[in-house]
């Protein structure tokens, strides 16, 4: 049975409740809506909300909580030999989950009988049964793991049933409650409106939950990482050299250097072009030119970063290598800091220009008039009056662009290379924080090893870095806007 059936059934019940409550309320008023406190459909809405909302919330909460409780129970049954360290525990649990998943699929396909999977206490038979059903079980797989998998599967099934029963029970209770209140003299509208307001508040709090989720998911795993790896080494070591057999050097300085170097090149390219384009479009261009050029430049902002990445990989990289780096003897790698930096610069041009454009337009016309009235030329007005006035806003825009550059992933994955290096040569391949997050978290990952967990520490660093930039930038821009409002 698919796990989707329970919520669908609850929804069906809620819709049925809508019609039942509406007609019930209408009948208490003798079929005359004018005698009712609220509109008939509001009583229906009331039943709909009372049936669906608590039950679905309960179901979601149970589904979220269940794996944790289940893990604790199964883990407590495991012998100490398998839970000596955090790494071994998570390995054992991963194996148990895998086998339990296999059992579930096999039973669904009818290649394994439920009895064979759950009743056989003899490990030999169980192993044979599982192998027969196409689940990879090696002779080394211990009895404890297999029993754990049996337990896991059993818990899973029991939990699924329990959840369905509890959630449907809640739905039924809600429905009964709402039907009892479907009477003509009940103020259904304010109940419904309060319910809707709660839903709206819930939706608004998703934003906060997301931030909390981001922070906690990374804090939690980064904490695991720092238990296994010294934080001093991570933040201050200049060596990045992960090895699968352990004993890796995981210093983030080379990654940070690559990130900042590429971002710097990108900003050096994008800020002057973006700023001058914004000045031209807002101060000089005719209305016609502005209406054509501005959207066209903004097309660059709508192009997905993977497109820029591919552009770096197959066009810009080879050109830089063949016409600049190789003739000058600076290197022969198509992926380089320069490649990634330049392409990222292109991506940032519309970002800088549209933010600056907004900010320049917010400078009041009276200041420009004052300057013209004194006999200054347009460029003098821009340089001496408009830009100084807009400076805080423009600084904010550049900070936001820097934050974008630091967090950008696809361009550097495809354009910058994978070698962690501390070098000044911009035509050398270097790597960034984001590239390493991707490479450490894709492919075979083992969430107990520092080589994988380091990605969360990197992610946290990246998040904090960009958050600081964003907060400062948003604060500066906000203050700037208030000044001229």
């Amino acid at each position, binding site marked *: 049975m698919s796990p989707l059936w329970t919520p669908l059934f609850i929804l069906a019940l809620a819709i049925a409740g809508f019609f039942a409550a509406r007609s019930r309320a209408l009948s208490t008023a003798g079929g005359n809506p004018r005698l009712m406190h609220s509109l008939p459909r509001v009583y229906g809405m009331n039943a709909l909300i009372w049936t669906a909302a608590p039950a679905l919330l309960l179901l979601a909460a149970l589904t979220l909580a269940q794996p944790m409780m289940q893990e604790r129970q199964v883990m407590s049954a495991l012998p100490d030999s398998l839970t000596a360290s955090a790494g071994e525990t998570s390995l054992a649990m991963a194996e148990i989950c895998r086998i339990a998943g296999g059992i579930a699929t096999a039973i669904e396909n009818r290649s394994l009988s439920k009895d064979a999977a759950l009743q056989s206490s003899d490990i030999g038979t169980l192993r044979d049964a599982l192998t027969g059903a196409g689940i990879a079980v090696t002779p080394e797989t211990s009895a404890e793991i297999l029993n754990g998998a049996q337990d896991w599967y059993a818990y899973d099934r029991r939990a699924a049933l329990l959840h369905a029963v509890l959630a449907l029970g809640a739905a039924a209770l809600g429905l009964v409650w709402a039907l009892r209140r479907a009477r003509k003299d009940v103020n259904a509208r304010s109940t419904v409106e309060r319910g809707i307001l709660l839903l709206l508040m819930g939706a608004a709090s998703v934003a906060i939950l997301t931030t909390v989720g981001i922070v906690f998911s990374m804090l939690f795993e980064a904490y695991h990482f720092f238990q296994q790896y010294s934080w001093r080494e991570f933040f201050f070591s200049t060596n990045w050299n992960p090895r699968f057999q352990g004993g890796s050097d995981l210093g983030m300085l080379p990654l940070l250097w690559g990130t900042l170097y590429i971002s710097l090149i990108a900003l050096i390219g994008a800020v002057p072009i973006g700023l001058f384009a914004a000045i031209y479009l807002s101060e000089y261009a005719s209305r016609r030119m502005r209406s054509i050029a501005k959207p066209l430049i903004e097309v660059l902002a709508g192009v997905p970063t993977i497109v820029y990445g591919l552009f770096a990989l197959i066009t810009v990289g080879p050109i830089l290598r063949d016409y600049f780096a190789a003739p000058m003897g600076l290197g022969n790698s198509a992926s380089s800091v320069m490649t990634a930096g330049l392409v990222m610069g292109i991506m940032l041009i519309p970002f800088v220009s549209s933010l600056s454009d907004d900010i320049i337009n917010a400078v009041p016309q009276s200041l420009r008039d004052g300057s013209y009235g*004194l006999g200054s030329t347009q460029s003098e007005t821009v340089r001496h009056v408009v830009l100084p*006035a807009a400076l805080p806003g423009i600084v904010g825009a550049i900070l936001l662009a820097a934050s974008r550059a630091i967090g950008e992933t696809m361009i550097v994955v495809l354009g910058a290379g994978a070698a962690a290096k501390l070098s000044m040569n911009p035509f050398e391949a270097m790597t960034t924080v984001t590239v390493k997050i991707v490479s450490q978290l894709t492919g075979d990952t083992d969430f107990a090893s520092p080589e994988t967990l380091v990605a969360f520490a990197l992610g946290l660093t990246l998040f904090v870095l960009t958050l600081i930039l964003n907060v400062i930038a948003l604060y500066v821009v906000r203050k700037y806007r208030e000044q001229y409002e």
Partner: protein
Amino acid sequence: MTQNRAKIRTEGVNVHYGATHAIKDVTLDIPDKTVTAFIGPSGCGKSTFLRCINRMNDTIDVCRVTGIITIDGEDIYDRRIDPVQLRRKVGMVFQKPNPFPKSIYDNVAYGPKIHGLARNRAELDEIVEKALRRGAIWDEVKDRLSEPGTGLSGGQQQRLCIARAIATEPEILLMDEPCSALDPIATSQVEELIYELKNNYSVVIVTHSMQQAARVSQKTAFFHLGTMVEYGETDEIFTNPRDERTENYITGRIG
């Protein structure tokens, strides 16, 4: 009162904003070293006409000016005239005080700097001080020249803007309702200043207040619906208007 020679002459000036005919065939002579007031109900075109005199209307795309405006006998709409050079000669003070977001000193020094009026810092200091003194604000700000001009009170800001305009040594000063954003005390300070200024400059002031025109100006032009209805000595206009519309306006029946 002695009649000065005409500094500004206009002949058949028409202004169009897109399809709107904002100024209709205005001809008048504005004498040197005099305060001339433009009065009239709001929307009558007096500000628009004022902005023609230093070509501030050039900054508006849809605005079209025809007719002749001469200053010292030179057509300012001649193709050879650079509006930037013109505006140095014809300074302007705006309705709302608009100090630049810079220090008080830099606000005043800005004009002399771009026009290259000072060879060194000492000369610039001198120009700034002179302008601030003429703007009747020196005593209030001499100890805080490096503070932002936006931190001053409204009346001080407007006098700073006048000082800023004076600093480029213009010959004509245009003022577009310079007191409309000020309280009565600040207004009287600025009015006194304007009265003083006529000794050195031709001042043209747009105002919606008839009392103000009567207090500060020697000549007055009355505008109504884009046309100049009447122009003459201020005393004449206020005591003995020739046109019925002027009389209606002055007695408060229109506007």
